[in-house]
Every structure is written in structure tokens, then in C-alpha cells.
């Protein structure tokens, strides 16, 4: 549906070039939810603005429906932009219009007859669940409601693609979940292709099919979400994955954690299970095979893109040579083991 080919964007600041995007190649298939994750300043906002050419790339091509849209004039871009809708972190609703008026806005732009507008807007208001708010002004809505209005407005022009620019970053976790559920619902119901950029791996985990990691203006990794979570190739991707798994060492362990191996202390491990190892009973295997005890301090298991993955903090008690062999056994079975110290 959307292809980016060798997109680069250079900004001038005080006569010095700043490379916001470097040779980005991206292919977003029809009907998918594609996430681009990156830290702030990584270039993700510039990237998403290059898709509908709000920002003109310095070089490279953008294809929409196999049409090269980088060549088009501003005037020729207008009908294309109506097929590529966008929602924003700060909603960008018109404060002078009601919910109804906001959703009607894109329809007024292409001179839709009044009766059709009315019907369509009412359908959309129902779709996003704001039936009793049609006449309210944005100032009287909560953040989640505003984003619902923005989504309804984005859908009014029957787009083929929806661009989400940090659409949930200004919302609390619960509202974020409900907005993401709405996006997923729209994606499935209308077959809408969604490109979303975010700095939160949770968002990717919840709704994306494919994910790309952007860092310093470059796409460093892209794959399916399941693949990324089970076999992240780059450090930056692993950092994002770990950020969704909030595993911290409890204070009392932290205080007596020693970084060198001493007599009577047991290793404290951080285990990452991905893909096939999630379902195998590795802990009880090492218990039997190496005569060690495992003391699980905390553990978490999650699903992303159809792949299970888990993270565990555990202390292994036993003879030093036995615990070492146990760690080796875990590593041999494709578990990522990190020895955090000794307690």
C-alpha cells in the first residue's frame, strides 16, 4: 500500500545540515498495522510526515497504491491526502466546532452534500462510541474522547491508510488501551492500513503486525512483532522490548547483591525465554539434573504478535559447580541468561 524508497531528509539549522532521515526503505502491506518505534529525536515524526508529504523528503520516493506521489504538485496531492488520513498526539481538533462539526470538516472540504454529511457523521460518531457527545465542544471532552473524535474525523474521507503520530502518548494507560482497541477494530472492520509511530513498545505489542525500529534517522531493524520479540537483533530493539517488561530487583535483594562470587552466595539470574523455550519446563529440568533449587523472585510472561515471551528473576541455590552447569544448560537451550550478581 505504501512504499518508501531511499527516503532522506536533511534540515538546515544555522547553515549546518541535520540528517533527520537517512535512506529509509519501508514497505507497508495493505491491511496491516505497521509500527515504527523510536526514541524522541530519532526521526519518527519526520518519517510519518514524509508519507503524506506534509514534510517533503530531500531525496527518495514515496509510493501510494503503486503511484509515485513525490512527483505530484501541491494541488495534485489534495485527493491523495484525502486517502491518507492522520491522527495526532495532541488531537488537533477545531475548538470552534462541535464534535459533529469536526467530523464533518473533511467532508465539507470536498463539498459533500449536507444530507450525506449528516448521515455519515452520525454513523462515525456511533462507530467511535460518542453518540451523546455530538453537540459538545472539544474543550468539554476528555483526552480519550478527543482522540475518538480525531479518529472519526480521520475516517470520514474513507481513507485507505491511517497515519497515527504518537496517537496515544498523551493518554493514560487505560485510555490508551481503549483507543488501541478501537484502532484494531477499525483495522479489522474496514481493512484499513495503519502506520503508527510511537516510543512505547506496549503500543506495538498490543496492536502491531509489523514493527520497525528507527534510531538516529535510520531504520535499524524491521520484522514481524513476534520475530522482533523473540529474536531482536539490535541493542536498541532489545532496550525497547525490556522497557515493556518491568522487572526490577526487589530492594532487599538489591541491598545484599554482591558482584563477585563469594562462599555461601548464590547467583541471581535474569532469564529471558523466547519462542520455543517458553513452554519447556527448563527450571524443573535443571533442578533434577544438577541438584539445584530455584527460587523465583518475579516472573512475567507476555504475548506479542502471536509469540510468547517471558522474563524471570530467579536465584539458583546449590553447589557452585552445579549452578554453573545449570546456567550453561539454560544457555544451551536458547535462554538468554544474565547473571546480575550473587545473593
Amino acid at each position: 500500500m505504501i512504499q518508501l524508497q531511499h527516503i532522506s531528509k536533511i534540515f538546515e539549522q544555522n547553515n549546518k545540515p541535520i540528517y533527520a532521515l537517512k535512506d529509509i526503505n519501508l514497505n507497508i502491506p495493505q491491511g496491516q498495522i505497521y509500527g515504527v518505534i523510536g526514541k524522541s529525536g530519532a526521526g519518527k515524526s519526520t518519517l510519518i510526515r514524509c508519507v503524506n508529504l506534509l514534510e517533503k523528503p530531500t531525496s527518495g520516493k514515496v509510493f501510494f497504491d503503486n503511484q509515485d506521489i513525490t512527483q505530484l504538485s501541491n494541488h495534485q496531492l489534495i485527493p491523495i491526502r484525502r486517502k491518507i488520513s492522520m491522527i495526532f498526539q495532541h488531537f488537533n481538533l477545531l475548538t470552534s466546532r462541535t464534535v459533529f462539526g469536526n467530523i464533518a470538516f473533511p467532508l465539507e472540504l470536498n463539498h459533500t452534500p449536507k444530507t450525506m454529511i449528516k448521515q455519515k457523521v452520525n454513523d462515525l460518531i456511533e462507530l467511535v462510541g460518542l453518540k451523546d457527545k455530538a453537540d459538545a465542544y472539544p474543550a468539554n471532552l476528555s483526552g480519550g474522547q478527543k482522540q475518538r473524535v480525531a479518529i472519526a474525523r480521520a475516517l470520514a474521507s474513507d481513507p485507505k491508510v491511517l497515519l497515527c503520530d504518537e496517537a496515544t502518548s498523551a493518554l493514560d494507560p487505560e485510555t490508551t488501551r481503549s483507543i488501541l482497541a478501537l484502532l484494531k477494530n477499525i483495522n479489522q472492520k474496514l481493512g484499513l492500513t495503519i502506520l503508527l509511530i510511537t516510543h512505547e513498545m506496549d503500543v506495538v505489542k498490543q496492536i502491531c503486525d509489523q514493527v520497525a525500529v528507527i534510531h538516529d534517522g535510520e531504520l535499524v531493524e524491521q520484522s514481524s512483532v513476534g520475530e522482533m520479540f523473540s529474536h531482536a537483533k539490535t541493542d536498541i530493539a532489545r532496550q525497547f522490548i525490556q522497557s515493556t517488561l518491568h522487572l526490577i530487583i526487589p530492594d532487599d535483594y538489591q541491598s545484599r547483591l554482591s558482584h563477585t562470587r563469594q562462599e555461601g552466595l548464590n547467583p541471581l539470574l535474569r532469564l529471558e525465554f523466547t519462542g520455543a523455550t517458553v513452554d519447556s519446563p527448563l527450571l524443573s529440568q535443571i533442578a533434577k539434573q544438577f541438584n539445584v533449587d530455584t527460587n523465583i523472585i518475579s516472573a512475567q510472561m507476555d504475548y506479542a504478535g502471536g509469540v510468547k515471551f517471558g522474563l524471570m528473576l530467579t536465584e539458583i541455590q546449590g553447589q557452585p559447580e552445579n549452578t554453573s552447569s545449570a546456567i550453561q544448560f539454560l544457555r544451551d537451550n536458547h535462554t538468554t541468561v544474565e547473571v546480575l550478581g550473587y545473593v
Partner: protein
Amino acid sequence: MFDFIPSFKPFESLCKFLAQYHFWDDFVAFCSSFNGFNEAMIFKMAQATDQTIYMVILSGFWGTVIGLPIGILLYTTRKGQILECYAANGFISLMTNIFRSIPFIILIVWIIPFTTLIMGTFIGKQAAIVPLSIGVSPLIARMIENALLDVPKGLIEAARSMGSTPLQIIFKVLLPESLPIIVNSMTITLITLTGYIAMAGAVGAGGLGQLAIQYGYNGYKPAIMNTVLVILIIIVFIIQFIGNTIVKRVTHH
């Protein structure tokens, strides 16, 4: 064409209407106890009030007709805006600043040839509309520009992402979104204009200014001067009140 309310005489008509009743004589008698007042002067005062309001309305209107597009252009041709054009912005900005620098009292006499050209005369309330409109338009332009600068950039970006033409952005986003600030600025402008009109009165435009100068100052009748001031204060208060009421109605924050 520039004078689309030639028979605007509400207060004069009101006085004529009230003069049919016999309490009018008591009123005239009461007023005549102040130095310089008589029935003719009361009618003069009503006429002058009509002329002042007439000039506020017409020059406010034509000033906006000139100033609004200039203000929109000042904003939209700025760097990074929808009609970005360095040369046009520089030129319009320069012209606005030049006209804003000319003291109003000088402007009136400076453009007399132009006034005579389009109105046929340079004396009277109709003729005064020309310098008043031209004098107030750069002020309106800058106020509109300022009001538009307050519209969040994200809104324009959103409108562009929906495939709006520049004209649609101006008329469906920029102006409606900044309407409360525009109305507020227009209130201030109209009040400033009331002051300009009093100045224009000093050089033959008619209105309350002329009355105050001619009878109050030159004729040394303090009562007339003070009455004119009271009327001007009431006019300013009414403009402010109307402005505030409209702002309240169009604000949805």
C-alpha cells in the same frame, strides 16, 4: 458605493420624535440653563453623535475590508506558512509599517488629493471615511496577523493532512479558530477609531470631535465640551460591551 448607509440618523430622528411631546420643552428649558445649550444645540449634538457612529461603522467596515486580507497575507506568507513567500511578506510588512508610522492627523491632509479623487470632496463625514479606513487598516492587518499567530500549528497541519486547499485553511480553520481574538482586537480597533474620528472632526469631518473643538474650545463653552466627552465615553462603553458579548458567544474554550 462607499457610503451604504447615507440616511443613518437615529439620534436626530429620535430628537425630532421626542420634540412632539410637551415634556420636550421642559427638557430644552433644563438644558438651556447650561451655558451654550439651546434647542438647536441639542439637535446639533444628536447630529454629531449620528455622524460619529456613522464614521465608526463605515470606516470600521472599509478598514476591515482593506486590513483583513492584508493581515491574512502577512500571516500566510510568513516562513513555514501555507503561502510562504519571502518577497511578498517583506513588501506587505514594509508597507504596513510605513502606513502605521504616519501620524493620523498628517495622513488626513496628506491623502487629500486621493480623497478628492474617489469621493469628489475632502470635507464632511463621507470624505472622512477614506483617511479613516486607510489609517486604521494597517492596525487591523497587524491585529489579524497576531490573532492568526495564536492558532496552534497542529491545526493547520491537520487541515493540510486532510487535503485542504490554502483558501479552505484560511476560511475554515484560521479565521473561525481565531475569531474570539479577532473580535477582541476589533473592539480595541473600533475604540481607537473613535479617537481618530474625533481628530478628523478637528479638520472638517464633522461629528462629536468637531462640535467639541468648535463650540467647546473655540467658543469656550465647557458644558458642551463635557457633554461631548460623556457621549464619547458612552459610545466607547457600548462598543466594549458589544465586543465582550460577541467574544463570549464565539469562545468555546
